Each structure stands twice: as C-alpha cells, then as structure tokens.
C-alpha cells in the first residue's frame, strides 16, 4: 500500500525572488459507461453519422421531459465508493442555464446544490525512481449532461450541430487544490483513469473525449496563502495537462515577479503552440441561474441500493498492487504494470492459478514473462483479451522453464511458435526434442572438449579473466544446440576450467 504521508514534495519553481510552490486542482469530466443517455433512451454508442443517436428530449422538442436513467446513478455511486467518498442519500438535479447552439434545452442538467457524492480521496504514487505518495482529496462528484458538438469547419459560412453526444451522462470529479506539480496532476489523472476502468464506470479514453479535465493553477511562496487561480478549460490528454500546468505556473511566477497581479481568468491552452489565451475574465462570468429542475424529483437512494453496488465492487487498483507485492513477491512497479488493466491482471492471476509449480519466485517468473515477453509480442492497439495465447498455455510454458525442462531462451522460442496457434508447449518440446540437457556426465565431457579446443582462453580465464565464463557458456550452447542447462553448465565450467 502507498504510504499515507507525503514523503517527497520537492517540486519548486526557481524564480528571481526565490522558490515558488505550484498548487493544482482538477475538475475531471468522465463520461459514464451506460447503454443510454442520462435522461433519454437514446444510445450512447459513438457514431460517425451526426444526429443519429438522438431522442426527442435531446433535441428539446416542446413538452419533452427527462427521465432519469438509474444505471447512471449506480455508476456514480460505484465511482464514489471507489474514491472513498460519502454517498449522499438525497441528491438533486439542477438546471444550469445558458444559451449555446449545441445545448438545445438552453440549460444543462447538473447537480449544483446537492451532489451525489461528497468528499473522498485517491492515493497516488508519484515519480519513477524515487516514488512517493500523494493523497488527493476530493470536493465532490456530481452527475451532469454532456453537451452536443458544434462543428465549424464543415461548411464555409455555417456551423453545424451534432447532438449525438448531447445528454450523455458525465461525472464531474472535483478535487481539492491538493496537487503540487504537473507531475502529481498527471499521476492523479493516470491513477484515476486506471481506477475508473477497473470500476467499469468510464472508458477514460481521453483521445475520444470520454475523459477531459479543467485544470486550476496558482502559485505561492512557501507558507503563503493560496494565490489567485487561473482555470484552463477542457484539456484532453495527460501530457497536455502536464504541459499546461508547466506553462501556466511559469507564466504566473514571471508575472508576479514582474510586479503584476494574476487575474482570475478562464483560459484555453493550445497544446500545439503552448499558448494560453484568455476565454473570459471573472467579471464576465456567466450567471447560470441554477435552480432545482422541476421535471426531476430529488434522487433518493437507500442503504440497500448502496449495498447492492458495494456487492459488485471489484478490487481497487491500489489494493491490487499491494496484494500482488505481498502475495506474489513482485516489485512495486511490476505490480503496477500488471494491475493497470483489469484484463491484464485477470490474465496474470489465471496464469498463476494454472501454474502448478511450488517454487520460490514462481509467481514473479510468470509476471516477468507477461511484462517482458507477452507484452513485447502484442501488436499496437491489441488488448490482452484479443490474443490467441491463453493463460493456461503460458502457465505450461513457464512451468517447463521453472522445472528446468527447457532453458529460458528455448522457452522464448517456444512462445514464438505457440503465439498464433496456442499449441500445447509440452508437445512442441517433445516433437522437436527441445528438453534441456542437465546430465552432468554429458556436460562435463563437452566442457573438457572445449578446454582442449581453446587453450588461450583457458589460460586467460585461469589468470583471472572471469568474464570469459560467458564465452565458455556460449560455446556450450553452440555444442548443445541451446539445450544445455545453463546453471549446470556454469557450475561445471568453474569446476573443470576454473
């Protein structure tokens, strides 16, 4: 488990006047996985044909009324539980009123006054070599409708509106200003993405727009009160979130050191140029005239509803990492890689279950085979559920290696052979005679032959050039067609030549 306390937080911007601390808060918009939209029966499936996934209420025809999709509430509750938040038994949908062509109702239905989830937190491990933990506390999670899309580049003098996305359920996950660097913010989004995917509540494909973030950035001198924040809207990749925070915090430090004030603006970050442009100033802020939506009664949920969601909660990624480290003696980063994707962790544990070898390090051997060999053979864009190889076959192969039947090198070549066909590796070993040679008499005889053939190297080795061990092993592999057991070979080389 990640340690609860922050052990490292060294990120500072070096300014002319001293060191500055960066303060970051995020509002993550995550599209909820559901069959139909938050308040209509229209499908949420992505479609390239504009205005084909649209119900009458999504176009705001006169007299149309929203009907709450309970599945979205369930998903929101699941996310809230996964983030250790407090599920509110009574929450209310409000209208956020503003005009925009891709907002047909003239209001977005959101939860302003009484959100579905209050509080919560996510422990995030930050850093590559020196890893530390950062707890990011949450303000709230509320549900709301996504807007449609305005397309400005389709016609020369007209804008087009696509309402396929209009009304799809979003969760807005609002953090406290708890992150202290671009790296921490990126790590948070990465961890959140993994969590949401494990929960199955959001695809979190930032490229497809199913997860986006508004980033709030301010800077301050150590110990000073919070500075004025600037909001960077609608950033759709983890990399850009990092770049935006770097650029904005740098800009703020320079401005402050030049004696300027920071204005509480809402800005756009252009990832192509790195430019930050002001969308609107605080005094121009829209008055959204929030009020409870009279078409939707308050959402009342009871303990039995919450408990039913609890029943179907999967193991959370942080807990899984800790368990993998403990039960399978994995390094932390290995555990993280294997738990990042729910399907990978399932593949790993199925393979472990099928691996009938009771040897120390057996589970880690399996982990390394997956991380090193299986991943390397997967082509881009293919998930682990899309490959021919089954966890059971991989387990058979790893067992052959662990039991010394074949060497690792031969094992890898067998993996190549069974990759497409998922053939039983034991049959390949038999039919191709690939069993490892561990018989000491045979091997000793071969070492003696090599000793005869390479007097110069033998002399040098005996003079202390121990590196030549590898040369002799290589000769042995050549002689045995790669089948000599390397451990036994090493021992015999030392015994005969050394």
């Amino acid at each position, binding site marked *: 488990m990640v340690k609860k306390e922050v052990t490292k937080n060294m990120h500072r911007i070096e300014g002319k006047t001293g060191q500055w601390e960066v303060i970051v808060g995020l509002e993550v918009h995550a599209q909820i996985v559901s069959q139909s939209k938050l308040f209509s029966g229209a499908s949420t499936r992505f479609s390239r044909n504009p205005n084909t996934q649209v119900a009458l209420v999504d176009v705001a025809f*006169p*007299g149309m*009324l929203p009907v709450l999709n309970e599945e979205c509430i369930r998903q929101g509750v699941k996310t809230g539980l996964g983030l250790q938040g407090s599920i509110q038994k009574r929450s209310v949908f409000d209208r956020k009123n503003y005009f925009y062509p891709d907002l047909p109702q003239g*209001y977005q239905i959101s939860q302003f006054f009484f959100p579905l989830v209050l509080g919560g937190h996510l422990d995030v491990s930050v850093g590559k070599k020196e890893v530390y933990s950062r707890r990011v506390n949450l303000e709230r999670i509320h549900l709301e409708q996504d807007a449609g899309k305005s397309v400005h580049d389709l016609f020369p003098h007209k804008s087009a509106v696509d309402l396929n996305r209009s009304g799809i359920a979003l969760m807005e996950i609002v953090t406290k200003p708890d992150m202290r660097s671009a790296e921490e913010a990126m790590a948070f989004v990465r961890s959140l993405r993994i969590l949401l995917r494990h929960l199955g509540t959001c695809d979190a494909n930032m490229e497809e727009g199913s997860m986006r973030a508004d980033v709030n950035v301010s800077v301050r001198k150590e110990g000073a009160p919070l500075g004025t924040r600037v909001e960077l809207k609608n950033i759709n990749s983890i990399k850009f979130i990092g770049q935006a925070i770097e650029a904005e915090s740098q800009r703020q430090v320079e401005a402050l050191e030049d004696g300027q004030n920071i204005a509480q603006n809402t800005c756009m970050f252009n990832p192509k140029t790195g430019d930050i442009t002001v969308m609107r100033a605080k005094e121009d802020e829209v008055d*959204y005239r929030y*009020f409870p939506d009279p078409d939707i009664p308050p959402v009342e949920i009871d303990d039995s509803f919450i408990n039913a969601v609890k029943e179907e909660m999967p193991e959370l990624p942080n807990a899984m990492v800790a368990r993998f480290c403990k039960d399978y003696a994995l390094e932390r980063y290995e555990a993280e890689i294997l738990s990042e994707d729910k399907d990978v962790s399932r593949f790993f544990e199925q393979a472990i279950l099928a691996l009938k070898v009771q040897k120390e390090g057996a589970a880690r051997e399996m982990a390394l085979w997956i991380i090193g060999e299986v991943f390397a053979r997967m082509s881009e864009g293919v998930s682990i559920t899309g490959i021919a190889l089954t966890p059971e076959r991989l387990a058979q192969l790893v067992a052959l290696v662990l039991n010394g039947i074949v060497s690792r090198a031969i094992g890898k070549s067998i993996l190549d052979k069974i990759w497409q066909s998922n053939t039983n590796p034991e049959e390949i070993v038999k039919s191709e005679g690939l069993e490892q040679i561990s018989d000491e008499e045979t091997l000793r005889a071969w070492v003696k032959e090599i000793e005869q053939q390479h007097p110069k190297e033998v002399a040098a080795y005996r003079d202390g050039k121990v590196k030549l061990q590898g040369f002799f092993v290589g000769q042995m592999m050549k002689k045995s067609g790669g089948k000599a057991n390397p451990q036994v070979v090493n021992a015999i080389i030392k015994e005969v030549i050394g």
Partner: protein
Amino acid sequence: MMLYKYTYSELRAGYEAKDFTVKEVLASYIQKIEENQNLNGYITLCLEQALQEAKKADENFAAGQPRKLEGMPIAVKDNFCMKGLRTTAASKMLENFIPHYNSSVIDRILNEGVIVLGKANMDEFAMGSSNETSYFGSVLNPWGNDKAIAPGGSSGGSAAIVAAGSSVAALGTDTGGSVRQPASFCGITGMRPTYGLCSRYGIVAFASSLDQAGPMTRDVADNALLLSVMAGHDPKDMTTLTEEIPDYSAILKNPISLKGKSFAYIEECLSASDEAVQRNMQNVFALLRERGAIVDPISLKLQKYAISAYVLISACEASSNLARYDGVRYTHRSQNADKLSNLYNESRSEGFGAEVKRRLCIGTYALSASEYEEFYLRVQKLRRLIYNDFMSVFAKYDLILTPTSPSEPFVLGEIQSPCAMYAQDHMTVMNALVGLPGLSIPSGLGAQGLPLGLQIIGNFLSESDIYALAHVLEKEIAFQSWLKK
C-alpha cells in the same frame, strides 16, 4: 336536432339507442363551429380527419364495441402536442411547428375514441388570464353577446368553445387557474387535478412544478368521465403519481348525503371578492347548511402572498423552460440576424409577445445568483408553509370552498395593468402552489348577468370527493348554461 347542445352522456345514450350517429353529431358541430367563428375559439381545425374518425366511431357502435369516450367531439388547447397537427401555444414563436408526436394525455383519450375537432386558442404559452396575449387574437366569451367579454385565460379558447357549442368538451391546462377561471367565466365545469395525476409529457411547458392538464366540460359527469381517461402514471413523466386511478364516473351513480359533511371557506378569499360574488357564495353555504352540512369560515393568513409567490415561481421556471425557443431548430427564426447572439436576440424579440417577455425578464432576474435566495428560495419555503396550512385545514374539514374568481367576467381590454391581471388568479393559485386539486362549477350569475364560479378545493387525490359534492351542488344550483338559455 340541435345535437351540439347535448352533453357527452346524452350523446352516448343517443348513440347507443341509435337515435343519431356520430357522423350526424359531427355535422352539427361543424355547422356550429362555422356559426361561432367570430368567437375565435380555434386556432387550427382538423374537421376532415374528425369526419373520418366519426365513421370509425359509428362502426364501433354498430359492432357493439364502443370505447369509453367513443364519438366524443373534443377541442384541445393548443399547447398539447399532436402528431401532424400544428401546435402553436398561441405564439408566433411556434407558428409553424408541427410535432411528430402526441402528448401522453392525447394518446390516452385518442385510445378511448375521442374525436379531435381542432386546437383551441389560449394565452401565449398559457401566460394570461383573459386570452388577450394570444398571437392569434383574443377569444370572445359567448356570454358577452354584443359586448366583448373576456373568456378568461389561459384556456379561454377551450372554455368558450365548450360554452358556445363548438365542442362538447375540451382539454385545458392549469398552471395558476388557467382551467378554472375561464371555466367560471364561461359557465362551464373545469377541473385542475392533483399535481402528477395527468402526464405533462408532450404539453408545451410553462411552469413545470405547477402545470397540470384538466378536463373542461358542460357538466360534472362528463368531467369525471374525461378525467378518468386522462389520468394515470406515465413513465415518460417522472412527476406523475403511481396511484391507481378510481373510476370517477362510477362514484356519481349514488349521490352523496351532505349530512355531517364539513366544509370550510377561506375568509380572505371571500372578503377580496365583489358583492355579487359574496352573495352567490352565501347562497351556496345556505344550501349546504340546509342539507345538514357544516360550513365554517377559516383564515389562511398566507393567502395574501400567494399571487406574488406564484408569479415569481412560474416566471422563474418559464424563463428556463422557454430557453429552448432560440431560433436554432423548429421555432421562428429572425431573418435579421447576422451572428449567433443576434440570432437568439432577434428571434426571441420577434417571436415572443409582450407578456411572455415580461415574465421571462422577471424569472431571469429572480433566478440570478444575487437574488436567488431572496426570491426563489423564499417562495419555495412559502410553498411549504402554505402546504402546512392546507393540511391543518384538511385535518378538520372535508373540502374547501371559494369563489373561482373574485369578480364577474370583465370586458376585454379593461384590465391594462399586469399586476391587476395577475390578481385575477387570486383564488386559484394557492392550491396550485402546493399541487392540490380544485374544481370550478357554475354557481349563478353576477350583477351583469355573467357567470360566476364556485371552486371546490380538496386534499391530494380527493378528486372523487370533489366530484361527488359538485354533482350534488350542480343539481341544486341548476345553472342555465349559455346553450340552454
């Protein structure tokens, strides 16, 4: 035969006895609609389709399989969406809007065999109490004869049509009195049911927490029958109730005894009414007491805030509900817009009438972040307090009686001040604010010989009790309708 004079129960008896056909009744109505054209009750007619439906209805009677409302000619307020039929809400904004869907209430009554004659005139987006805000012009109250008397509003077209024999029944909607006040003005029967009894799906929204569909008919029996069909849970409207709907007509078969029944009247409502109205109410009370009922005065102190509360809350909701009419999709679109913000401004400036704009301004202001607590939240608290007051009355009394309107119907154009017009809803907004049902029945004539109405307010889902009392009173009062006069 002047078939247009009959109530539906009378028509039904005639259909079943083969005295006349649905087609003949339709012909009679078509002629009457022609004669009544000057009343301006209809915005859009669909008589050809009606004649085809009549043929089907006659077949159903011939086959001995008539549905509950088979062959009932009906007018529909022009804020109920009907598939293929223009639905304007009496606004230029929706002048050319033809829905491709039916409102749920329309589906329910069509399934039981009603024949829609056309769409009835109304105040624009149901905002008004005189039908004068309609983009399609005012409606005349048939009682006016040579004088231009207001039919009430906003369901003024529906009320005038039923009173004048242009349809046997009509659908209205009631937000703060829009079924009951015009019913009273035109001497017919109009019900605002418990909030959530009828689906709002497919009704052009004015104020969502207040809007309710209601039947407007020539007598209590028709009203009860029509509501039985209109009411019921609708999965498309989350605010509809799930309770089983009783057969309101069946209840009327055995008239109730008034002995020991207890009724309350609201002093504040009586004292705010003019003399003729007060006298009329006293007559009703005397009648009830004669039959052994208790009639007591009660005081509802918060009554004086009801109009302000209603105007504010309905304007707040309307300012949001009407945001969808933006010139982008199915609405009026200004030809004078050269950019997006102009498109909104110009289309809305051209498309909405003065009263609608006034309410949108009030609502937009009241919902602004700085005023929200002062207005919206306070009104919501007030609604709760009014609810408490009503509940304490219903702990002691069966039903509450008030005049439907504080005065006789007025002359068109007579009321110019918006606030004076809002005050027309004096008696009808209070129960609307908390969702309680109220029925208006004709109770006599005022000083100028124009109709007065009695309102019966009941507890939630007490429609049966309201109808039962109204049925008895209707017989006793023996009001002479305009058609029978």
